[in-house]
């Protein structure tokens, strides 16, 4: 029933604004991107960049009394933003699934894992209770949960953070989604558990043509998981690239700064870290011109007055939002 074009999700010129006491605030200001089947898109940015709001907008989880959307979000030929809430509810969990960061608060503490899993299953499929239970156990096996039958009878607090995250992934998969959105899926986990969960997600992707969006601030997770990446800053996309291109030749000064400021595991310890000076402006004080200009080492006059457009890089699919990216890149080669 799903059309077999490679493009799964197309977000086009999405704007999301909230009503606040101090006036309307636009958290996502005109972003566009696509996700193809079987592909993982990384959305990278720091606090305030709008990445979580983007995920919430795709899933339409925001309070619609206080939120205004504009633009289109096409999934399998339908504009998600134009759907009535009843249809959106059907789509959630079935065509679209989301895993949030805090696994403890995503699970109801007073119900068993089995209870919550079978509930998630029967919402989207007509199944008898016994069948649903068996399917739930198979999902737990698929996500690498040891002793799945026993886990079905346990409560969320009896499981470790890593196991809970696996349960959430199982719940997300139960509706057989075409698109999986993972919002900081491993941020709350230890590094060894994180490695296991990332491997799990990679394995699952390898065996299905599900598309996924991984939202993270951790460039290491991006390197491990993603095929393509968009970098967000203060509500805008500032760079879009395939993952190798992003790490080899980052174009936007913010991306370059981010990559440079992480203490590399094999870097020179005696040198101070590269720093992006200043801080992210608040959404109430969006600067005129380029939003990154006052923290940018390469800013010129035009950067401070006129916002740069998102332009394609030569013949590739990469894009960058910077007036000076070409001269910055040429500097590197000198």
């Amino acid at each position: 029933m799903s059309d077999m074009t490679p493009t799964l999700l197309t977000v086009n010129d999405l704007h999301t604004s909230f009503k606040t006491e101090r006036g309307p605030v636009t958290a996502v200001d005109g972003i566009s991107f696509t996700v193809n089947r079987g592909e993982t898109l990384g959305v990278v940015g720091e606090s305030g960049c709008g990445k979580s709001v983007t995920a919430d907008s795709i899933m339409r989880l925001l309070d619609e009394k206080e939120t205004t959307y504009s633009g289109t979000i096409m999934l399998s030929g339908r504009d998600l933003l134009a759907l009535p809430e009843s249809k959106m509810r059907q789509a959630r969990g079935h065509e679209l699934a989301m895993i949030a960061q805090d696994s403890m608060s995503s699970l109801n503490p007073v119900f068993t894992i089995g209870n919550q899993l079978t509930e998630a299953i029967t919402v989207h499929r007509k199944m008898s209770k016994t069948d649903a239970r068996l399917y739930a156990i198979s999902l737990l096996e698929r996500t690498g949960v040891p002793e799945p039958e026993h886990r079905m009878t346990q409560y969320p607090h009896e499981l470790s953070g890593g196991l809970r995250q696996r349960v959430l992934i199982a719940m997300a998969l139960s509706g057989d989604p075409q698109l999986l959105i993972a919002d900081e899926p491993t941020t709350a986990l230890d590094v060894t558990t994180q490695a296991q969960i990332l491997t799990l997600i990679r394995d699952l992707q390898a065996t299905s043509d599900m598309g996924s969006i991984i939202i993270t601030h951790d460039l290491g997770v991006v390197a491990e998981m993603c095929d393509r990446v968009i970098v967000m800053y203060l509500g805008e996309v500032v760079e879009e690239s395939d993952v190798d291109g992003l790490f080899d030749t980052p174009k936007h000064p913010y991306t370059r700064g981010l990559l440079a400021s992480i203490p590399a595991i094999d870097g020179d310890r005696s040198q101070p870290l590269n720093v992006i000076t200043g801080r992210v402006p608040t959404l109430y004080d969006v600067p005129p011109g380029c939003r990154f200009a006052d923290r940018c080492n390469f800013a010129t006059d035009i950067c401070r007055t006129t916002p740069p457009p998102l332009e394609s890089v030569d013949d590739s699919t990469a894009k960058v939002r910077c007036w000076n990216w070409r001269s910055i890149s040429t500097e590197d080669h000198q």
Partner: protein
Amino acid sequence: MSTSAPTETSPEAAVQESSQPLLEVRGLTKRFTSHGSSGKKITRAVDDVSFDIMPGETFGLVGESGCGKSTTGRSLLRLIEPDSGTVRYEGRDLVTMPRRELHSTRRQIQMVFQDPFSSLNPRRRIGAILEEALQIQFHLRMSDRRERVLKILDKVGFSEEYYYRFPHEMSGGQRQRIGVARALIVDPKLIICDEPVSALDVSIQSQILNMLDDLQAELGLSYLFISHDLSVVRHISDRIAVMKDGQIVEQGPTDAIFSNPQHAYTQQLLNAIPASHPSIARSRYAAASASAPIIPQRKA
């Protein structure tokens, strides 16, 4: 309560005493009893931990959640009372020290906390919070206190107006800098940093880490740097201890640990660090799938 004004520690003085450890921890142990559904359980949160911190050095304590690193840090200051062991600061054992003497020693060992959002009293201005740190330890005139606060604000990069600001008017990174200022203002020799950058954005982390480095060089401070982030610990620490389940499984100079880890757990930790480049990730993943098959998909 000391009545004299605080003095600056010079890096030279720190180096002169460099042969003697500033802090000697031996056999530190802390047990917690929990009464769960499966009966009484005794957990050794800190299990026979021993290490030294030399003057002017940064000692990293690294491990995953629940390994006991935070409890160790807190036990040094007796925020949590250890069950056994000794913590010798400049030769005197903190664990058995009477409360009065502990108070003046506390001035010399300060702590920076992880959560920038709850580490500052939301109802008090920055100036008041910093002055309070002085009031607890010293008897200074109001104008002297204020002068010292303004000096320390300047040192961590804030203008005079921040004296009057409230914490909620500041970002996480700024608040963490105030946390460092609060630790510095009483002129300590050792600062225990408990995950000081873990809650901050990456671009702010580097600002704070550089600031800590600069302050150490200028003032001759020692740090106990507690963190779960191996890349950060590697960058800032001279020597490192790796903790698991309350015990130190390996310790040594940073370069040695990272280039030649001896203990299996240390190796496991280092292997788990996400790749720094997608090509590294791909080759590791390919090697792993070759040796272990992908989880087979069951038919629904």
